[in-house]
């Protein structure tokens, strides 16, 4: 392989890895935008989404890309329950409490999943496994292309939902001004539940795509991607969805570039080094305004 195709390879891997981060980071941002809450346990929803896809796939043998919708629906429910039982009672009692509560959620979800599914590494074979498509000088697995297309579709769907539907508009109104939204008669608590559920559904989509791409997973897999998603939204600006998309792509590229140049062991550390360097220069994030 010549240099150009190595660079292309890294770019493509970065794009694919970026998709999962984008979905996670967008979900986090959606929740933050509306509720001003940061859920550090967001990665656990990715993990649960992955396991739901895995289980349904084992029992029915459906195409995993179809199960994606099922997994997202299930996570809307789980997210709504978590919001109602855990986050609503502590809303407005301090940012530190939200962080500590997330730690409790991490304990519960990770080990609850380990009780149900065991803690061994699992993997699923996609029906399109082994099929490759030539893209320029590269031959790319078909699954990667589907994953990128699915991510783009989900993001377009989200955009239309936020712009065109009444609930989407209410969500935007609440995120802009919570008190104002209450004054014009929006039930902000209902909007909270919907946003949280939607954010979790995006995480579930990320989890399903993770499974479908043939990567291994176990109950503890969610923590690192979630923290990276969080790093992305700090870089891209809290509450900004375009920022999350650009940040996610950059993160995927930086990681795969670092893994190629420095060795795979640096894959996790590099994202935090980037984060710390950025925060040293700009304590509110790259595009962060006064909110941070």
């Amino acid at each position: 392989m010549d240099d150009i195709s190595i660079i292309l390879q890294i770019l493509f891997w970065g794009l694919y890895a970026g998709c999962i981060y984008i979905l996670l980071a967008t979900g986090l941002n959606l929740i933050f935008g509306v509720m001003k809450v940061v859920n550090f346990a967001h990665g656990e929803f990715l993990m649960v989404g992955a396991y739901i896809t895995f289980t349904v796939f084992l029992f029915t043998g459906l195409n995993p890309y179809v199960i994606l919708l099922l997994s997202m629906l299930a996570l809307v429910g789980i997210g709504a329950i978590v919001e109602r039982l855990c986050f609503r009672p502590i809303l407005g009692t301090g940012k530190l409490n939200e962080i500590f509560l997330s730690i409790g959620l991490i304990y519960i979800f990770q080990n609850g999943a380990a009780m149900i599914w065991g803690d061994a590494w699992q993997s699923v074979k996609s029906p399109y496994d082994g099929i490759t498509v030539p893209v320029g000088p590269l031959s790319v697995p078909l699954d990667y292309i589907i994953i990128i297309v699915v991510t783009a579709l989900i993001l377009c769907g989200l955009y239309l939902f936020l712009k065109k539907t009444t609930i989407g508009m209410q969500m935007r109104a609440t995120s802009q001004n919570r008190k104002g939204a209450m004054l014009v008669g929006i039930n902000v608590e209902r909007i909270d539940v919907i946003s949280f559920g939607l954010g979790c559904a995006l995480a579930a989509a990320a989890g399903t795509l993770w499974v479908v791409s043939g990567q291994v997973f176990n109950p503890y897999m969610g923590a690192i991607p979630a923290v990276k998603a969080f790093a992305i939204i700090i870089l891209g600006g809290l509450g900004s969805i375009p920022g999350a998309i650009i940040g996610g792509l950059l993160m995927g590229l930086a990681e795969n570039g670092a893994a190629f140049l420095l060795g795979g062991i640096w894959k996790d550390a590099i994202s935090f080094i980037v984060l710390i360097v950025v925060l040293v220069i700009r304590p509110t994030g790259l595009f962060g305004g006064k909110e941070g």
Partner: protein
Amino acid sequence: MLSAISPSLRYLTALALIAAAALPFLTDNMFIINLAVLMLIAIIFSSAWNLLACSGQGSLGHAAFFGIGAYASTLVAVALGITPFITIFIGAGVAAVIGILIGLTCVRLKEWFLAMVTFGFAIIVQTLVVSVLAPMTGGWDGIPSPRLISPAIPGYQLIEYYAILAITIAIIIAIWYIMRSKAGLAFLAIRENETEARAAGINPVRYRLLAFALSAFIAGIAGALQIHHIGYITPELFGVDNSFWPITFVILGGLGTIAGPVIGTVVLTVIWEGLKETGMTFARYVIIGIILILTIIFLPKGLVSLPERVREWKEKRERKRSVIEEFSSDIE
């Protein structure tokens, strides 16, 4: 919070001290002594985390300082051949210096950003230890660490227990003095309202850095003690679990109090070991998570505030009853 030590807390302190001193006479089960040693170390570690939280900074990566103290102390002790009793403080000093360096990034950050940076820092340190520093640290396999008291000495476990108990008490007293000093008041003022603290002439950056340095120093002592107690060191020390335990202990006991970390650690360790007896593995963690969340929602000031909460609840009931009686007598 600190100035008013209630009599009940004073009795509890005395009782705890007597129990801790008498423990080796009550049991000769080395498992329990060993558990008590680990509990004391956890108390030091939680108190260190709590000190930082007092200044409004919630770290999610305190395992980094715990591990740095442990590694620095081990490496110095091995290289120079001096007793761990001295290298513990060298290790803690290294942790404090690195704490100041990472603190320089953190002091200007808001809660979430700070949590992220500290969390990421633990991962970066772990990566460094297993990659660049591997020739020195032994990578993932780890290296043996000199024991605090040589196992050749008869009754070394008891000597070690009392030595660590003494260090723990000294550290708690030191923290008590810090929190009563001007610095401690400044920490609390910054946590409550940074703008007002600034208006009162407190320089938040300086005091936050101080909190970082002190907290990293004490966490470093805890890490070094644990590793010299176990006699072996691996990079697992930097794990996420190790960062989360002190948080869980402190939240349960009572954030921002001296007694909180002690009570939280003891209660949770007893629950943890009790659940182990029932043969639970993953369910133990689920239960800890549920306890943590219930504490945050229903007892936000921790177990320390439990007597107060019970009294409040009783008074409320009393008031309700007297109102009802008044009403019923009016009707008559």
